[in-house]
């Protein structure tokens, strides 16, 4: 940590909000200490001793790698996080150990130095192979060698188990081995330099209800342990040395939240019904069965998007059919009689699998992802389809395919599904013959041919995040163009209108499961456009329900008509804000406090 004068001025860092909540406290900069590696010669007599030391360290390491997953398994309801399988493979790798033994004999240097050298050499060679998967193997080799080195040095692995007090933990990234033994009661929040919504930190934080912000690029150097900070997991901010004004502002927000929270939570069991009697289904987007509890507490009436990537990431092999059946059935049973819409594996883009065979692509968002990835691996895909079908016997399950861009994909996926149905019938395994199968509409091309697709779907679910970025050609992660990303762009309104019209014509329903669905300002527009279902992160449900109960459908329809005539995203946004302010002023004061 660089110098003595720590900045007293407020500094705001912007990242990706991955787990909601606001916390304030001291920062703890977690930087797993690299053990200092000294180089020293070893006398001939002592070489045998070096072998023994290495062997003992390896035994201890193996023991840790076996014990940690059991510990995490209990915490996360997943019996075997695959990353440690990869670590064990590296630890037991004959090539690594043979090299260490050989060089130990010939060079007569201490085992720490040689292990470090050999591991580095392999890690560098793997990292050079220009492949996402292999780069991660390089990280495994480094992780394992670091673990052995720490055991050789008798160093601690469990820094996070002994936090000096309640802290906001700031790290470059947190791996399962970092967080395995961490003391949850002392972790106020997570701030990570790397990561995305699906990284380990994000998933862990959400399942534990710990606020978290990731993607805070290279901030570690500028912040020191002990500095005061405010972490905003709603908007994705880390504010270091917050000023009196900022604290006051957040304090006010908190007071107002508390005052309205009572009102919102009293709505929990009320239907999401407009003043003129139109009911809308509100679902939650979830990844883990643990999130069901939060979803129900916040008044969600189902799961509108169950992401299945979690089962596939961080492991060597694809999950087995039985493992998947267990996971899906758990969610279905927990939500019964409400619906659970399972999205088939949506890998690729920013959601790269560890165990899969993704190579680095120039344009991952235009590449091998979603349904394309699955159709190319029919065996893997069929395993998932069979698992979903079998779980459909356990509750109200629906299923949808992600990233559809073409009718042919729908037909091929449904053919595979039919094969699975046939097989299950023959095997006498029960499933729901009437399970609804829908399509995610997130590619503009699919939105334009919604009339064609509707003939082959039981419903549409519009994934607005991707739909927006593909339609306006904006990468939200690119700071230079991020401001162009606008849900209120006239093109988006027209695409949604088109999808809803196509659904109506075929008498199927259309929902929205992107972030737009969880924004109370956007919701009147979506309802006015004719959307039948909204699915959002669980914490957004109360505010969305509140605004739905404050407005009437006829006003929403008029609003939609009016905004469809707007020429710019800004104009639409203004009209939507004005509408929301007029029907739910007290809610708007909370979520958009700075506007007059």
């Amino acid at each position, binding site marked *: 940590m660089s110098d003595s004068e720590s900045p007293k001025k407020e500094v705001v860092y912007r990242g990706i909000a991955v787990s909601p909540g606001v916390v304030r406290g001291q920062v703890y900069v977690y930087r797993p200490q690299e053990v200092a590696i000294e180089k020293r010669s070893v006398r001939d007599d002592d070489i045998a001793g070096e072998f023994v030391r290495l062997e003992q360290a390896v035994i201890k390491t193996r023991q840790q790698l076996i014990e940690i997953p059991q510990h995490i398994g209990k915490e996360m309801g997943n019996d075997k996080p695959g990353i440690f399988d990869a670590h064990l493979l590296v630890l037991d790798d004959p*090539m690594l150990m043979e090299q260490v033994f050989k060089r130990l004999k010939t060079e007569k240097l201490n085992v720490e130095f040689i292990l470090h050298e050999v591991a580095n050499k392999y890690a560098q060679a793997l990292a050079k*192979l220009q*492949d996402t998967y292999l780069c991660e*193997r390089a990280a495994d*080799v480094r992780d394992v060698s670091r673990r052995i080195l720490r055991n050789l040095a008798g160093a601690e692995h469990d820094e996070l188990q002994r936090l000096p007090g309640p802290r906001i933990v700031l790290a470059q990234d947190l791996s399962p081995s970092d967080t395995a033994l961490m003391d949850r009661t002392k972790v106020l929040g997570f701030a990570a330099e790397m990561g995305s919504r699906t990284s380990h930190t994000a998933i862990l934080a959400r399942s534990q209800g710990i606020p978290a912000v990731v993607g805070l690029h290279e901030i570690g150097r500028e912040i020191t342990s002990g500095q005061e900070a405010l972490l905003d997991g709603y908007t994705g901010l880390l504010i270091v040395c917050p000023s009196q004004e900022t604290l006051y502002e957040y304090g006010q927000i908190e007071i107002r939240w508390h005052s309205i929270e009572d009102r919102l939570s009293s709505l929990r069991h009320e239907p999401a019904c407009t003043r003129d009697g139109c009911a809308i289904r509100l679902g939650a987007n979830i990844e883990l069965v643990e999130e069901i509890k939060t979803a129900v507490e916040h008044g969600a009436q189902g799961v509108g998007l169950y992401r299945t990537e979690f089962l596939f990431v961080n492991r060597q092999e694809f999950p087995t059919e039985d493992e998947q059946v267990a996971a899906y059935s758990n969610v279905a049973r927990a939500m019964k009689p409400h619906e659970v819409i399972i999205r088939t594996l949506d890998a690729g883009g920013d959601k790269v699998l560890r165990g899969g065979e993704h190579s680095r692509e120039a344009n991952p968002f235009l590449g091998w992802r979603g349904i394309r990835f699955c159709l190319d691996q029919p065996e893997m895909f069929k395993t998932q389809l069979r698992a979903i079908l079998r779980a459909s016997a356990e509750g109200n399950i629906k299923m949808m395919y992600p990233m559809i861009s073409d009718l042919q994909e729908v037909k091929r996926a449904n053919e595979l599904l039919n094969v699975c149905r046939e097989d299950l019938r023959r095997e006498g395994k029960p499933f729901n013959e009437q399970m609804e199968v829908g399509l995610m509409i997130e590619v503009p091309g699919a939105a334009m041919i919604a009339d064609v697709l509707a003939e082959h779907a039981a419903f549409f679910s519009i994934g607005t995040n991707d739909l927006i970025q593909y339609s306006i050609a904006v990468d939200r992660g690119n700071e230079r163009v991020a401001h162009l990303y606008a849900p209120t762009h006239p093109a988006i309104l027209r695409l949604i209108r088109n999808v809803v019209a196509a659904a109506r014509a075929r008498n199927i329903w259309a929902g929205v499961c992107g972030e737009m669905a969880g924004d109370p300002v956007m919701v009147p527009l979506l309802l006015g456009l004719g959307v039948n279902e909204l699915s959002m992160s669980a914490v957004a449900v109360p505010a969305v329900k509140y605004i739905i109960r404050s407005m009437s459908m006829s006003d929403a329809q008029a609003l939609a008509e009016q905004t469809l005539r707007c020429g710019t995203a800004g104009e639409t946004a203004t009209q939507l804000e004005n509408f929301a302010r007029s029907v739910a002023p007290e809610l708007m004061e909370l979520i958009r406090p700075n506007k007059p």
Partner: protein
Amino acid sequence: MKSSPIGGDEHPRPLIREVVVINKQGIHARPAALFVKTATKFRADIGIEKEGEVVNGKSIIGLLMLAAGEGTKLTLTAQGQDAEKALAELSKLFEDKFSED
């Protein structure tokens, strides 16, 4: 240590088998792990050679570092009592495209 019923030769000549990678994704994560798992079932020493570079067939790092893509010709070697069985099973993995595609 069990001795082989025929002769009990501890160090027979290495057996050699040529294989071609025909699965689209090449020897990546899953295939490499499958190969190593299969290879470690046998007592024989297993080697894989690609263009003169030889790696230990029981090493996941070694296998990954070969970066053998679709169409790559590899030479498998096995030396030990169960070498023949090992080669048969291992080359079958290649023929079966590692249960992919």
